[in-house]
């Protein structure tokens, strides 16, 4: 009976199947050759695979010039959000699917180091990076960029109500700011986790839940993801939601200007950057253990720390370069702010307590 199925199918959806067959052929044709590229072919370019998260972006020009200079072909493997991508790298560490991994941040750093997925490498570019970013003394994970998770506010709202902008975490619990703040769930959102860590750094692991209880009585709005918080709840963005304050990034006001429909005279939003109110996320790159293309991988890491790539980072990913030599674009110097004294916690402490903190927060705030 089996042999009849093809004819039946053909009859059933003749067009559909033919199209699908065409699709298969097309897809197969588009796909790069599945054969593993040998480390050194004299003629063709050497393929370098870079595993990263969904938010990774880079200018096409830069990629092409790196490829030309090094006779390389870069392949980017995007694997979901930060957690998903790191998980993939960890799960496949015995037979790595890429040569370089970019995008592990300081909240996940300890986990990546404990799983030992990176090979140490000390690039010459390290000299231009401030010591505060070098969180891994063994140089397995190298800092590339950072971003401050800060509260964004709707400038027009505060101006219109003659309301002073809060200047500390404590202020947010005051009655004049009742119902004005939207935050993300730390269990499902990376800025949400960063803000929770800022409160833990400020109030300590014993007292932070007390603070959150006061936020809850001050009607803080909690949603699961940044998209909802920013576009549905926040009044300063396109969604024109009900809350004039939201947990986002210090660079978001610059994005509001760059991605405005008509260039505004001034950013409609701004960040609260007062000491202790922001949490700094640092993103790292590392050479994956077991790569057969160590030399090229080193070149790529050098490239990521070089001035051209570092200057590309702000407008591609809305984060700041760690290289002190890199100049910032105008929109950033004008509208984006850098946190004055961002809260920070040692990566080891975050790794050891992240689950317990989130669990306790969930019980206190959501249930």
């Amino acid at each position, binding site marked *: *009976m*089996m042999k*009849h*199925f093809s004819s*039946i199918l053909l*009859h*059933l*959806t003749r067009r*559909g*199947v033919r199209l*699908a067959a065409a*699709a*298969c052929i097309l*897809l197969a044709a*588009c*796909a*790069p050759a*599945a054969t593993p590229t040998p480390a050194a072919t004299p003629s063709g370019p050497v393929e370098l695979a870079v595993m990263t998260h969904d938010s990774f*972006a*880079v*200018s*096409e020009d830069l990629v092409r010039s790196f490829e030309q200079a090094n006779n390389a072909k870069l392949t*980017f*493997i995007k*694997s*979901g959000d930060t*957690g*998903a991508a790191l*998980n993939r790298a960890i*799960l496949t560490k015995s037979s790595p*699917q890429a040569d370089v991994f970019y995008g592990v941040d300081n909240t*996940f750093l300890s*986990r990546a180091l404990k799983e030992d997925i990176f090979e140490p490498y000390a690039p010459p570019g390290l000299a231009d990076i401030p010591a505060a970013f070098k969180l891994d003394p063994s140089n397995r994970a190298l800092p590339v960029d950072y971003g401050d998770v800060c509260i964004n506010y709707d400038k*027009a709202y505060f*101006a*219109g109500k003659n309301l002073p902008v809060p200047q500390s975490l404590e202020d947010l619990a005051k009655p004049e700011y009742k119902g004005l703040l939207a935050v993300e769930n730390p*269990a*499902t959102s990376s800025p949400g986790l960063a803000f929770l860590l800022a409160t833990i750094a400020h109030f300590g692991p014993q007292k932070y839940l007390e603070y959150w209880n006061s936020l809850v009585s001050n009607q803080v709005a*909690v*949603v*699961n*993801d940044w*998209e*909802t918080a920013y*576009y*549905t709840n926040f*009044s300063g963005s*396109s*969604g*024109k*939601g009900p809350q004039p304050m939201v947990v*986002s990034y210090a660079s978001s006001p610059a994005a*509001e200007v*760059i*991605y*405005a*429909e008509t260039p505004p005279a001034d950013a409609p939003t701004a960040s609260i950057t007062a000491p202790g109110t922001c949490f700094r996320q640092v993103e790292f790159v590392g050479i994956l253990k077991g790569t057969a293309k160590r030399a090229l991988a080193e070149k790529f890491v050098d490239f990521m720390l070089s001035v051209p790539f570092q200057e590309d980072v702000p407008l*591609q990913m809305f984060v700041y370069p760690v290289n002190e030599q890199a100049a910032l674009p105008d929109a950033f110097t004008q509208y984006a702010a850098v946190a004055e004294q961002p809260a920070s916690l040692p990566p080891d402490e975050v790794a050891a307590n992240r689950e317990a903190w*989130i669990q306790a927060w969930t019980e206190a705030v959501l*249930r």
Partner: protein
Amino acid sequence: MSLTARPRSALAWGSLLWLLPLAFLLLFFLTPLARILALAWQAAGEQGALSAGLPGQVMYPLGFTLFQAALSTLLTLLAGLPAAYLFGRFSFAGRRLLRVLSTLPFILPTVVVAAGFNALLGPRGLLNLALMGLAGLDQPPIHFMNTLGAILTAHVFYNVSVVLRVVGGAWERLDLRLEQAARTLGAGGLRAFWEVTLPLLRPAILGAALLVFLFNFTSFGVILLLGGPRFVTLEVEIYIQALQLLNLPLAGLLSAVQLGFTLLLTALARRLEPGQGIPLAPRVKGEGLRNPRGWGQRLALGALVAGLALFTLSPLAALAVRSVTRLEAERGQRGAVQTGLTLDYYRELFVNRRGSIFYVPPATAALNSLLYALATVGISLGLGVPAAYALNRSGPARRWLDALLMLPLGASAVTLGLGYVITFNRPPLDVRSFPLLIPIAHSLVALPFVVRTLQPAIAAVPPSLRQAAEVLGASPARAWLLVDVPILSRAALTGAVFAFTISLGEFGATSLLARPEFPTLPVAIFRFFSQPGALNYGQAMAMATLLMLVCALSILALDR
């Protein structure tokens, strides 16, 4: 002719029907799943990570998952069955268009549906803005987002088309003469419905209910985006544990619980089904359809059509409207919002403003989506047809195959995705270079739909027709081609539309497995959505509107 009377060779061929679908499931479903669960088990042993608070960590999400899935399924049936009656029994102007449009929710990524509901019912949605304007309120009167109501509404919104297509299709195929015979014998309209029509529809209703239940059972995006942080299903908890807390052991345990319940539910649904399908003579297509008679019927029908159109279309329309609208709040006024029309968002889609290497023109994203969707249709029909035939043969293996086929619907997408990543690691089956893995993953979800729509249709093919053809000298192949195929083509088409739409709207597996150079429309939508700025938001809306358009046009072309 019963199975026992068949010659031996037919039996042997019959068992071959299993082979292809079984091999497919073994390779692309069971292997990756087993590997990831084994890894989780091993990690559990090493870390001793399963703590004392475990029962609560499993029972709380499990309880809510079952509760919301049952309630959502009930509401979907309540909304879907009248609509199925409408489409199964009446012809009216715009019937085909409405059927296509009612499929649209099914394809939309949750992030878009959430945006649609937000554009309609959110704090600054069209409805709240209108009410605030009319009544002079300064707070939005409707609280919809982050409520249980939002979860249930979205689930009904998504799944009404499943009931409509599966049950409505079966209704349309019913042999009218049976009901007419009952009426001739003196049964009233209600009694004929209760004692003739309903029992005949039972397999379709049960099948649709099971599909809807499992869809809601593994609900992820709706819970996360519309329900908000207070509601946690198993799938949401698996996502949090696996990808945010990197607690693979607990994620594995939750996945196993989810799979266990899927098997249990499938077995339960099987028991409820009548043992033997009732063969029905195929009838002229559209024979059972009639125009509404009298004012009362016209009015009721009109109300039903309007209700269905309003419910399925208003969030989509709000989205389309939002894609050409800009909102500008007056300074310092939280209430007053000015609106203006703009085509900027569409224009901007064609500009690679940042010179990014990952920029993809909308037409390319649409083409990628279409190619994946067509490949999914091919794969899931190629496997679904033999599987549906195999399911219609009795035997002990039948129940197993049935459960196995439904299992992918109940499998955690996160877990399976990680399973793919560790299993398909080297050529030729390498997630990095084998693009067919995406339509294959989509086919796992589409297959239950294809099988559930085909199987009752196959059961209803009267063997007497095939026998008559064979008596008249047709070879078994020819008899099949001339008897089965024309009868089944409608059901196969329904399955194909499901497969097509499932693939077109799928986001999770695609984002994990797709190469960044070949993003689909949902992936492109998400890329815009995850960046701040009015243009990005607008472009996400514009891309979503394009997705709806592409889907509507494709279904119109496919569904004749």
